[in-house]
């Protein structure tokens, strides 16, 4: 993992989380803004996956356990699509809150992944 990229992802995920939760609690239903912003998180995660595959080959191996790292990354990758799927099926204010919760969960998981990659020892 590359720390600046991780920070960017975490900040974006938190902002998206706040946006979706606030809009949801305000009674707004999922719309392009909330759904696509979570979609953007997924795109960034996919880029993160590519980076994680390339990094060890480019002299940036994890200090922690690679299997544990990928367990987190794979779990993280399936959450946004599930949340978006939910929001598209059930267009209520709570689906927006669910999108926000998913975004916050991703932020936490990204932070853990960064720890596993750069701080933790295997």
């Amino acid at each position, binding site marked *: 993992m590359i720390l600046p990229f991780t920070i960017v992802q975490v900040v974006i995920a938190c902002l998206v989380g706040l946006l979706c939760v606030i809009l949801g609690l305000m*009674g707004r239903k999922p719309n392009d803004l909330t759904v696509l912003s979570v979609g953007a998180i997924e795109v960034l995660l996919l880029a993160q996956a590519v980076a994680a595959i390339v990094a060890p080959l480019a002299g940036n191996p994890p200090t922690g*356990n690679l*299997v*544990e790292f990928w*367990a*987190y990354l*794979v*779990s993280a990758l*399936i*959450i946004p699509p*599930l*949340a978006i799927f*939910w929001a598209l099926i*059930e267009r*209520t*204010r*709570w*689906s927006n*809150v*669910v999108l926000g*919760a*998913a975004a916050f*969960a991703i932020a*936490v*998981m990204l932070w853990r992944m960064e720890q596993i990659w750069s701080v933790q020892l295997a």
Partner: protein
Amino acid sequence: MSDHPRTRASGIGRLLVAVYAILAIAALGRSAFQIIDRFDEAPIAFSLSAVAAVVYVLATLSLAFGWDRLAWVTITFELVGVLVVGTLSVVAPAVLGLDDANPFGREATVWSAYGAGYLFIPLALPILGILWLRHRARSGVPA
């Protein structure tokens, strides 16, 4: 659209299902990794972890599909689990075969230190789940 009580209750119910689903995914991933990578380090704790993960999945499904009895059983199991295992992990980790009480350590599970490693969500969630089930039972509305 107006937000009468049934919609709101079922809306919060949806959020509960979603957070349970996220925790179930996290617990499954964590437990699978630990069993694959280091089962012999703490077999009791990791086996409990696997059971907990499966129960989280069942709790998620039962809340989502309105299987009330299963929901009660699974949520109660988790609440008891996080309280008992949480306490043991802090005061007597050796009983679980753990070397230390660190909820972020190598042998930490979803219930270590009352779910501290997961922002205490494993502790809060079953409590909220029980409150929600009681609310539903009392008001008699379907999910």
